[in-house]
């Protein structure tokens, strides 16, 4: 069984918390682990905030997909938006570092250290999703279009 929900709208800061809460509440139907729900909410929040901050034109899109498989489910959160060249290059650089890191937690710690004296922006959102959210982060860039996708497996209700 699969379930998917899409949200598409012009970027608006007010959407961030609503979408993040929606993800957590919808997933609560299938997942009882409060820590897992908190991780999903954090990931949705950071992804939506990036859409609001970096969409250069047009709508931003958010998608939630749940694929049920045996005792659990795989949850994928993804966003899609147009972004300026500067932000696409920044995403590429961050993702290269993130993908090549052996240990997500050590990578997160070094990104935190590096962010301390950066004057603008935290640049920590995706590393935070990887380390705190314990989700795999992937991305693609096609022209001006940026797709960011995060996923993880979760136990569903009634499973040990």
């Amino acid at each position, binding site marked *: 069984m699969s379930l998917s929900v899409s949200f598409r709208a012009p970027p608006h800061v007010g959407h961030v918390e609503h979408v993040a809460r929606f993800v957590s509440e919808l997933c609560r139907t299938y997942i009882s682990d409060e820590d897992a729900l908190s991780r999903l909410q954090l990931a949705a929040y950071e992804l939506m*905030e990036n859409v609001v901050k970096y969409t250069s034109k047009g709508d931003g899109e958010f998608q939630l997909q749940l694929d049920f498989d045996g005792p659990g489910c795989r949850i994928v959160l993804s966003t899609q938006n147009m972004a300026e060249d500067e932000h696409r290059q920044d995403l590429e650089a961050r993702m290269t570092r993130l993908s090549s890191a052996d240990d997500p937690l050590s990578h997160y710690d070094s990104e935190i250290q590096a962010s301390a004296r950066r004057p603008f922006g935290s640049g*920590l959102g995706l590393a935070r999703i990887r380390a705190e959210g314990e989700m795999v982060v992937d991305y693609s860039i096609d022209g001006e279009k940026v797709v960011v996708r995060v996923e993880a497996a979760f136990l569903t209700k009634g499973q040990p």
Partner: protein
Amino acid sequence: MSELALDRVVTPVLTLEPSLEGERLRVDFSGTGDMSAIEALNGYLKRVHAEAQRLNLAEVICDLKKLSFMNSSCFKAFVTWIDAVKTDSRHYRIVLLANPELHWQRRSLEALRRLATGVVSVESG
């Protein structure tokens, strides 16, 4: 000891309530650290640092038990503050009080503690 020169701050999403308890400054956080709170939080933590130095305080306690969420930009405001304390010759301790029911706090506050283990401690309960 001088009087505390730090006011209560109220934004639409975040409230910061300071109080002086002997040689300790306590700040109670409530609400959400979202995009609209970044500027207020950044400025406030700079003033907290200045006050802690001016009053030669031993400890700053941040009670985060009523902080429902903190985005990565607000998280970075803490990173910048902790880094400033860590690299300053006059250290004071930072105690972060966590709410165990707010699961994000366990990982996020632990990451802040790792940034400066000799400066930051996390107490949950």
